[in-house]
């Protein structure tokens, strides 16, 4: 039983963590909480199944096509749901616009693809130390994304530019950084990360349209726990959530595990509103 909790908890936690990272990447350059992150995960699974199974492409090519399409959806998100509301961030209009776009994505997929879960192909097809691919692939992917993002943010100019905009938007613009293009690029990147989450979790979650709202909710919890914009917090929060949810599944069972998860979530936020890792934003007066 412990083995089962660890295996599925860490796997599903990795998917939640990656979705949290998607939220954060979009937040970093726009200060906007875009509720399309979970739908990107769903789209990753659906497109993966479409390219690899229905169209018969080899899996690496299907992955590439999926990432490109998801990056495109990320760019569309920026254009349609984020740019128009940037002027009035304090009115929180982005909640409405991103949620509306998320709903449109979900229903388009439901109409065009199917409302029933569809199968997802095995990427590598082998188990590691007796652990099936559907449990180790999300973990490996999460690790790869973490390493990739570290390299991006610390070693490349683009990564430095992203962090500059995240830290101080006005100063970055004053220094001549092309804020709009960087924002578009970060939304494309977020789209790719979200799709990667869904693609690596395809065997576990299947290509299912209902994964959209599921990942939207459960991917948001690590962000809230870890602090907005804090990737490390999101990763830790994601794994903690996955493990806790699976443990609750075993101990309390199906429906009540959701109650347990959200009860704990509310409790943590009451005790630490800025998240477990976030720091209260200090303002210069």
């Amino acid at each position, binding site marked *: 039983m412990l083995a*089962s909790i660890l295996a599925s908890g860490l796997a599903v936690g990795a998917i939640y963590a990656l979705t949290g990272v998607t939220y954060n990447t979009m937040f970093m350059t726009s200060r906007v909480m875009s509720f399309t992150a979970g739908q990107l995960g769903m789209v990753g699974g659906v497109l993966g199944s479409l390219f690899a199974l229905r169209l018969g492409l080899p899996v690496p090519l299907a992955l590439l096509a999926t990432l490109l399409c998801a990056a495109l959806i990320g760019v569309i998100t920026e254009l349609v749901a984020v740019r128009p509301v940037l002027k009035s961030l304090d009115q929180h209009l982005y909640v409405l616009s991103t949620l509306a776009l998320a709903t449109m994505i979900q229903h388009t997929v*439901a109409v065009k693809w199917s409302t*029933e879960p569809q*199968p997802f192909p095995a990427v590598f097809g082998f188990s590691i130390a007796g652990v099936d691919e559907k449990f180790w692939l999300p973990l490996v992917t999460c690790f790869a994304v973490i390493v990739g993002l570290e390299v991006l943010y610390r070693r490349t100019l683009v990564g430095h530019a992203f962090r500059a905009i995240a830290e101080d938007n006005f100063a970055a613009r004053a220094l001549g950084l092309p804020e709009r293009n960087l924002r578009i690029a970060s939304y494309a990147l977020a789209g790719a990360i979200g799709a990667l989450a869904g693609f690596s979790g395809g065997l576990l979650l299947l290509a299912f349209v*209902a994964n959209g709202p*599921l990942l939207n909710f459960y991917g948001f919890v690590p962000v809230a726990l870890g602090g907005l914009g804090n990737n490390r917090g999101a990763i830790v929060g994601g794994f903690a959530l996955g493990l806790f949810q699976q443990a609750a599944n075993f101990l309390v069972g*199906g429906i009540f595990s959701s109650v347990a998860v959200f009860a704990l979530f509310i409790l943590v936020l009451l005790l630490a509103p800025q998240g477990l890792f976030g720091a209260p934003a200090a303002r210069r007066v």
Partner: protein
Amino acid sequence: MKLNRREFTLGAAASVAALATPAIAQTEPLRIGWLAALTGPTAAPAIGFNRGVLFATEAINAAGGVKGRKIEIITRDTQSDPTKAVNGTQELISSARVHGIWGPTNSGESLAVTPIMARAKIPNIHPCVVDPLIDPVKYPNAFRLAPSNTQWDDAVRGYALKILKVTKVAVIGDATGYGVAAAKASSEGLKKDGAEVVYVANIDATQPDMTPDLLRARNAGAQAIVVWSTSTGMDARLFNTRAVMGWDVPFVGHPSMSSGDIAKLLDKPENWKKVYAIGYRSCSYDEAGKLPPRSEELIGKLKGKVDLSDTLLWWVAGGVDAINLFAKAVTETGSSESAEIIKYLNGVKNYPGYFGEYTWSETNHNGYPTSDVVMSDASTARDGTFRLAPGYQG
């Protein structure tokens, strides 16, 4: 009383109209409204029923119609949406002026439109499952062609307790309103029949890992698992998890377990063995591969005209029966008035339909015989029919 010219003209016009109306009514087409969820998430049954409806209508019209009157099917696609079903119903009753309505095809829509049809006293035949849809007192115009959920539950319970002969049962439902209600009713029925319900759970259809729930069921000593879920993804995960656990407990329950969608979601085809889903005697073939005689007759008539490979026979047969029932009502009573059709339907006894033998009365509007609801071997689909689950006599 002195008649002036105005009164005379009006009176003459009225009497001409009154004399003419029955004559017009006897030659105008028999209009049957068809509320079909042809698009949307629950479209598969309606698409199947539609094939039967069109087939039966063509056959009757080609043979001269009903007492010389052609049948006209007026279809409204409800898109699985109760609001559109309500709008469609109002339109069928008020502007299309139909003589009877077949459908809707899903319970959510039917719950919305049944009171409207009752107010308009329009004869309605439908195949929806939810129990409160039928009430001869509140809805004297509504007749059910297919089994109710209670009849489904009776068939599942009967198979588990009398044929599989188990005493300890686990009940698993999905987390939808239907799953919760069905699991509750099922547990109560099992307890009333003396079985021990060792584990009950409602599982969200998106839960990726079914191991915790199946482990708990096994630890509680379940000898059979009754499943009330409409989600094929959840069904497939249950079957795969059972195989991984090396457990050979039988699954008995909702017809979604025999859906073609499941095949692609299974890790191995053997995982579909020992799964028994609700089916119908008329659509079950025996060990020799033969359907009951009337069904073989229908298959013969449908061959080359109606595709059965991607649908279920009971849907097509149900659509055929519905149209034939309306036609028979008008033929026997000589009238397409609502009250006459309803009176005829109330007197139907052992009507030999292709889907089943229907019996209705003033006090009972559930027409399908419970004894014809049987379990199918879920993995044995062949042109919309299934092999009868093992253990049935006759």
